[in-house]
């Protein structure tokens, strides 16, 4: 098969080039990662004998343009729709900015917390003069002595009602995520003084001493940061917390080198790609588009089953911590939840369950689902305010 002869049929005309450009464009719109080099190669293919039959060309284009299984699965549909003009039934646009009416998005949920206006937390320019006033308005705010940060730290998320304060809560969550990372990487550096000699470097340094290895350079096992997989409950009962948690998760994805986020209500949605957008407002928008049906019921068991079946093998490795943010109110059966938790337990290193209800006075985890899940949880902690989130830090650093 050495050097397959490119039998040049007639050169590709301008009209066909335009059609190809259009096809590539439509692929990009559908979320395919296609660069200029691919387009050029596609042109080569069109000039070759492969273009004799559309079936052949389809197969060749599929190999060229697809990069992952999800691309692979919908390529035929896109190809047929474009070249053979067969109707495309399902919408495939991923990165659209338009939004269906009546669909409740995360962004709206966040906005719903801010009663004043529709400013989005991430986009607000903070005005220094307003700061004090705002935080003093928050119900349990302390006027004397304490700093603003601490003040906010004490407030239950449910009680934060103005966009500015929400922004501060978000910032704190983001900072917290960042400080977790710092702690972990610093540990990494100290461990570098390892037990073994790094011969390569030692010899390199020995040359200037005429071959006598005076400076010994050592190496040791590299430390890697743990991977954090977050499963966020976005059901109706969590409405009060979803916005803040979302920002917290956004902060985590932004700052951890390895992190994945999923959102669940009655089904499970993988939202990492949406939340990896740096701008928080846009990230929430994109996530909202992906996660339709937010604010409905919860089926934790089913969502976990879906996670175990389709995602766990890929996102979980031996240094993974799974963090579930949920109140544990489940409409599924506790048995299923228990079984799925057990499966998850076997795969990952640690499971952390953060439950906002622990912050309430007199709360005990009596809900059936929560009872079933508890035996498999390493850390069951409150996450009703920022202090409780901050308290997690040493635990995560220890993993």
């Amino acid at each position, binding site marked *: *098969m*050495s050097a*397959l002869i490119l039998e040049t049929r007639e050169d590709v005309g301008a009209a066909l080039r335009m059609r190809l450009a259009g096809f590539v464009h439509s692929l990009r719109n559908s979320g395919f990662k296609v660069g200029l080099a691919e387009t050029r190669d596609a042109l080569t*293919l069109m000039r070759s004998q492969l273009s004799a039959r559309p079936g052949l060309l389809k197969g060749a284009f599929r190999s060229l343009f697809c990069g992952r299984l999800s691309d*692979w699965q919908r390529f035929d549909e896109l190809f047929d729709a474009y070249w053979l003009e067969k109707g495309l039934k399902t919408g495939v646009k991923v990165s659209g900015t338009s939004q269906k009416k009546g669909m409740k998005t995360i962004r709206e949920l966040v906005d719903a917390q801010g009663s004043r206006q529709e400013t989005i937390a991430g986009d607000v320019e903070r005005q220094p003069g307003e700061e004090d006033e705002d935080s003093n308005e928050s119900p349990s705010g302390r006027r004397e002595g304490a700093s603003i940060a601490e003040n906010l730290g004490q407030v239950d998320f449910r009680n934060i009602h103005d966009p500015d304060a929400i922004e501060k809560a978000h910032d704190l969550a983001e900072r917290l995520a960042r400080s977790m990372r710092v702690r972990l990487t610093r540990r990494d550096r100290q461990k570098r003084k390892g037990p073994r000699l790094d011969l*390569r470097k030692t*010899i390199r340094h020995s040359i200037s001493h005429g071959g006598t290895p005076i400076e010994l350079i050592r190496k040791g096992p590299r430390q890697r940061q743990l991977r954090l997989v977050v499963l966020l409950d976005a059901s109706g009962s969590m409405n009060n917390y979803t916005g803040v948690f979302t920002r917290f998760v956004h902060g985590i994805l932004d700052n951890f080198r390895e992190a994945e986020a999923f959102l669940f209500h009655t089904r499970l949605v993988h939202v990492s790609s949406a939340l990896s957008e740096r701008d928080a407002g846009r990230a929430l928008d994109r996530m909202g588009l992906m996660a339709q049906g937010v604010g409905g019921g919860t089926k934790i068991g089913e969502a976990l089953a879906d996670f175990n079946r389709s995602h766990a*093998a890929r996102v979980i490795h031996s240094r993974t911590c799974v963090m579930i943010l949920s109140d544990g109110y489940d409409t599924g059966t506790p048995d299923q939840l228990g079984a799925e938790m057990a499966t998850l337990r076997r795969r990952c290193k640690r499971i952390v369950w953060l439950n906002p209800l622990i912050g309430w006075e007199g709360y005990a985890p009596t809900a059936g689902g929560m009872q079933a899940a508890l035996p498999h949880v390493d850390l069951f902690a409150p996450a009703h305010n920022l202090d409780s989130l901050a308290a997690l830090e040493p635990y995560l650093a220890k993993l």
Partner: protein
Amino acid sequence: MSKNKQQLAKALAATGYVADEGLATALILTDMLSRPLLLEGEAGVGKTEVAKALAKLEETNLIRLQCYEGLDRSDAIYEWNYQRQLLAIKAREGSGENADKVEEAVFSEKYLLERPLLAAIRQENPPVLLIDEVDRADEEFEAFLLEILSDYQVSIPELGTVEATSIPRVVLTSNGTRELSDALRRRCLYHYVDYPSPDREARILLARVEGLDAALALQIAELMGKLRKEDLAKVPGVAETIDWAAALLGLGAKNLHESRELVFDSLVCVLKTREDQSRVSREVADRLLGKVA
């Protein structure tokens, strides 16, 4: 020589690999566009075999790099032979040569150990380079892999840039234990290897298991197809089917319906976890067998 899809598929089949629809096209393209081919699919669907068959077909070397976490330049590209270097330095100690000369001598071709990636681009005949389970390696490795796959050259600080004498045919495989970067995916041609259809699996069995009868092969392949649809923790791959067929043949099975006992007993070849073994009870095995013609 120019080959079309059918010819290539036939040539592959002669080496014992029964290619699926589209794989032959993808292999032709790797040649035409000089791009690496990324094969994804569940464990045990025969991704690695593709590279082996290709090497056999081309009668060229197969250079294999098995990836694992922590794989670095010194394991994948090149390494200096430190023991010999130290000896050489010691031997020259009294000769009064200046340090620059010693350095030049010590960091020369003679003391260089080739690792798979460097070896692959320095062959006379273009070899098949198999980068197996690339998802097990970490992102750092992916980054320098990209560099090699796009320029086919390696820069060694002490020695200079080593250009490729021949461009290898590269096959990467991935099980999806980690998401690969978009850059790597974009660079490669992509083919998803699925579990084979019963018909193709039967043909694979016939190619791989000697003395197997076509009717039995088809029965085994069909039963396997049904078994994969069960909710199993570890879905058996093609390698398992081949083992199983060989086992059944060795145990003297002629027709699966007539030797139900054997079928159930030999399921150990296929079911590899305790949960799966308890899930496929005698009744389940009988039910599945009932659906097979």
